[in-house]
């Protein structure tokens, strides 16, 4: 499948006069945030290794792990939206540490010394998740020791660094979007569609675990809104979801169908899938293959325990509500992949 970023009409406040650095703008979330801010009147600088393909923004190519690049990127900025991260679900611990911890530290140091006053930090609910069910809970503190897997553990450490830097002069707000999906998302959406098309996507234990997800457009708008919210509330982490939990089996079915695949039917018991996930992960690591394993332990857990959140505090602090419902999201996804 060829991936292309959908261009949405975002609804945001006016950000004329803001100078914003967005990191990780080659990804679907980062490029969405950069576009939305650009359209809202902000002067946008983007920093990432590959080309963003965006017009109307100042583009810096490079890595956040490089102090010079970082220093250069934050010059003249009042706001940083830090999205860049190593996000895949497999890989060596070192790679994750370099980007998610050291890269964050490098950029934070640069930003603090150059007069940046707002830091919107994109994290993940997995930073506080030790494997048990989450049923209508608020954001718990990040914990690198109990977070599962390299990604979550390093994101937890990165989040703690950002929160430790919070002050009245350098206001930090952490957002943890949960299971983002939508047109152009390669992480979850297109994997589901691909694998469902190949009939390689199992559902676990009937797929009844209730999970929160977040439609991409809503994620972008929430992050942009946070640039206003951080002026009054900072120094904490908020989980970000559509506020519409669904059984994981149903979500996958609907995303697959929206992408033009058949409904997946393969049913694996969760225990078996977890075991299989570990084996496959190790195998992929050993082979150093570029492709992702079909299922990993992390995903298996995601798919066999409930993960849904109390969104009341998030919505109150951000003064934001998801504008696109899941149902509308499925429609938009269908339009995108149908054309």
């Amino acid at each position, binding site marked *: 499948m060829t991936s292309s970023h959908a261009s949405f009409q975002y609804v945001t406040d006016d950000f004329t006069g803001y100078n914003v650095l967005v990191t990780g703008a080659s990804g679907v979330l980062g490029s969405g945030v950069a576009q939305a801010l650009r359209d809202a009147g902000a002067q946008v600088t983007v920093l990432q290794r590959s080309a963003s393909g965006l017009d109307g923004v100042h583009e810096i190519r490079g890595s956040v792990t490089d102090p010079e690049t970082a220093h250069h990127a934050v010059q003249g900025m009042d706001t940083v939206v830090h999205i860049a991260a190593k996000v895949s679900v497999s890989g060596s611990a070192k790679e994750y540490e370099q980007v998610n911890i050291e890269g964050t530290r490098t950029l934070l140091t640069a930003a603090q010394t150059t007069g940046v006053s707002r830091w919107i930090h994109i994290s993940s609910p997995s930073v506080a998740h030790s494997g048990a069910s989450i049923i209508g809970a608020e954001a718990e503190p990040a914990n690198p020791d109990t977070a599962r897997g390299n990604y979550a553990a390093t994101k937890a450490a990165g989040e703690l660094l950002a929160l430790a830097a919070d002050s009245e002069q350098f206001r930090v707000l952490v957002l943890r979007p949960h299971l983002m999906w939508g047109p152009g998302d390669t992480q979850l959406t297109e994997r589901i569609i691909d694998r469902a098309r190949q009939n390689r996507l199992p559902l676990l234990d009937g797929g009844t675990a*209730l999970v929160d997800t977040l439609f991409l457009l809503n994620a972008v708008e929430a992050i942009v809104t946070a640039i206003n919210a951080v002026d009054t509330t900072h120094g904490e982490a908020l989980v970000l979801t559509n506020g519409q939990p669904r059984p994981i089996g149903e979500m996958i079915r609907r995303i697959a169908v929206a992408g033009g695949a058949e409904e997946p039917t393969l049913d694996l018991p969760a225990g078996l899938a977890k075991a299989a996930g570990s084996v496959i992960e190790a195998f992929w690591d050993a082979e150093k293959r570029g492709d992702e394993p079909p299922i990993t332990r992390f995903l298996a857990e995601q798919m066999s325990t409930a993960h849904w959140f109390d969104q009341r505090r998030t919505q109150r602090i951000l003064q934001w509500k998801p504008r696109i419902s899941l149902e509308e999201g499925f429609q938009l996804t269908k339009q995108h992949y149908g054309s």
Partner: protein
Amino acid sequence: MISPKPAQYPHSVLDPLQLPGWDPRWSQIVEAETCDGTRQFHVLDTGPMLADRGIGPDDIDAIVIAVHGNPTWSYLWRHIAQAGLEAAQGNVELGPGAGRAPVIRVIAPDQLDMGFSERLEHTSLPSAAGSSSSYRTLEQRIYDLDAVVAELISDSNKAPVFSLGHDWGGIISLGWATDADVRSSGSGVEPSGMISLNTAVWHEESDPIPAPLQAALAGPVLSGSTVVTPAFLDTTLALGQPALAKDIKTAYKAPYRGRQDRGGIGGFVADIPATESHRSRNALRKVANQLSSTEKPALLLWGAKDPVFLDRYQHDLLQRIDDVVIHRYNTAGHLLAEDRDISVPVLGWIRQQLDGDNRPTPDLTAARGSEAVGDYSPLWSFLDQWSESSTKAMVDMTINDAHGKPFEVTWAKLSSMVDAIAVGFRENGMRPGDRVSMLVEPGRDLTAALYAVLRVGGVAVVTDAGLGVDGMTRAIRSAAPQWIIGQTPGLSLARIGNLPGKRLSVKTMDPIARRVLGLSGSIYGFASTYAGQQYGPTAEQPDPNPTDDAAILFTSGSTGPAKGVRYTHQKLSALTQRLQHTLHVEPGSSLLAGFAPFALLGPAIGATSVTPNMSVTKPATLTAKSLAQAAIAGDTTMIFASPAALRNVVDTAHELNTEQRTALEQISMLLSAGAPVPVPLMNEVLELVPNAEFHSPYGMTESLLISDIDHHTQHAIAGRDDRGVCVGKPLDVARVAMAPLDFLGRSSDELFEGDNAVNKLAEIVISTPHMLAGYDKLYNTNRQTRVDSVDGLQWHRTGDIGHFDEHGRLWIEGRTQHIVTPSTGAFGPGGPEDDIQRLPSINRVAIVGVGPVGTQAIVAVVEPHDGDIKPGLAPSALSDDVRAATDIDIAAVLVTHRVPVDIRHNSKINRPLLAEWAEKVLAGGKVTAL
């Protein structure tokens, strides 16, 4: 043999993690001057912690002195200590309208030789002889308690003090609270009230002490089981209902690990004055006498499943203390403080004691509400008035006479039978106020026995067969009747369940059966022995007072153990007036009850009672034919039937012949009972009874009639899109107020009526002349449901939710415990269920919430007609249909093959059970059977 040891801080010998729920900051070591010198006590005292939080002595609403029993320690009171602290943070809710939870300081000493208090020196093991020894006696322990109180409560304290106790600590705390001599020469504290959990202050010498204690008291067993081994400790800790968690048991055992630590356990058992000559006998008698004369208010909280503190000790306390209320937990046990949350009832009761009764004076001339009871007329008025009438009082199609004709009895005959039986009751010792359990199937025998019991002033205890054997046994035990009237099945149940009360049979039995069942007489025997004798009213045979209790009703249908609903003669008199009015009863009216208990009402409202041929407990066995035959035999003008019965009548209507159809055409009134009748069924029924008004009253055991809707109104509202089921306008004598739900689904403190109540989703709160007098032995339930005092009237929070439309019609949308609370605001499940129910593919549906209150995910559990759909996550097409049918955001649609409903009505959905199931499935668990 046992060496002395000073008091200890628990956390000096234990890792705090070994005492879950315990805060080390509560621990104090207090030195107090006791009868034999200075002694050290370990005391739980939350005073210092409150002070640390800025809550000084003047900010404390009350002090609770809590005394543990044997073999526990002050760990028993950790929940109440925590609740007192939480109340200071505003974190304890006593329920809508109940006021602010009082801030209480809890002082709970470990008794000497117990818990972490000082161990005394003992040269020998304790023995039951009760001779002088080094072990503490009851009298000493009362002095000890006062000595500790004297050290901790300063003279300047102004906060009211309440005592709280459990087990043997109950006796000590009650004894201390009522012994002015001990306190005036010591602490000088004057308690304002007393609270006790399971305890016993008295038993007669002839009254055997409970078997478990007898065993413990037997000779060398005493020291063996209590001191040398931890058997007594282990046995007590095994009494949790449900079982205590392992870490909690370990915490209780912490101070009693070695035999050197357990002397007090044996000493306590040895101090039970099992014999007249026991050294603590007089002290116990003194406590009992003090309780008999005290004017202090008392609250008893009682776990019914206690093998030691049996119901007879509870009854003794209820008789002995003048100003006492009780909450009896039918399914909790000896360790009630572990089994249930007692802090809310304790704080709620203290709140009430602090506030006093602020109820305004009611307007006794009011036309509506609890005081509008009208002129009192006894339930047997028609039996008196028509004592010479030869018209039919009862027709019972289930019984044939010698000629094969249905059984009939005239008013004259019924009247004289009731008189004769009443005389028999009185002659055999039944007295006004005696509770009489009626284990008789509905029919003529029950009717005769019931009116005779009422006549004598007995309190009829009626238990619905739908409760099942366990439910009935629990209910009867709770009611504690002095008498049980039954036929063989009922009396056998009483015998197997070891239920209290003297036994009377219906029919006269042979001598062997009489002995086996322990019978004191029979109804039929009384009817013939005392035939022709009139019952009172005389000094010997007085009429009951209108305000005396007349009946306690235990019904099935709602979830949880059945509650005893108490009615006085006056309230039942008001009910009969209301029924006469609603049913348009006039001389010659004849009531055919397709729901057996309603046949009982006939004699009280002056209508012929007709019982059709059907299974008493299964309404759905009523056929059109048996209905019509009964109508012919009884010249019936009105029919009372449940929706399930009506369904079957319609389904069997093709069997009717012309004569039977004509008989049904004579019916002028039809009432549905128990649950709402769907309009299509109502229309089908109306084709069979074309001349009838079809009424669907709304009510409950707590007030049988609240509102009423007829079929004209049903048709008129057909196009409305209100949520829920319309039950019409309130009766003209009823006041129906609304307590609107807040965003989290909690009912408001304030009540709204009239225009102010329109279109607010609210808990329904009623005040009717014929409402319950209260729940029996359920203090906390009464406190929560009878909390309102608008216009000085008695009100009842029904637990039903719904709204008034702009025409003043009431719509029911479910129960408070069924409220779903997503982040978009609370709602009742009734409305969306109606929407989904209209889908042709759906047989039944329940809407439930899973997750925390205020942010719940909404789940639709559906039972599709198509039985081939696998239980679990619904297929996409079905989910799409269900979501499209309603405007709420449904997180998941789950399929089950059986949405559970109650047995009797076959319509009330057990939503709490479904919510629990859905929560498990949606947590990622297996799709289990319901």
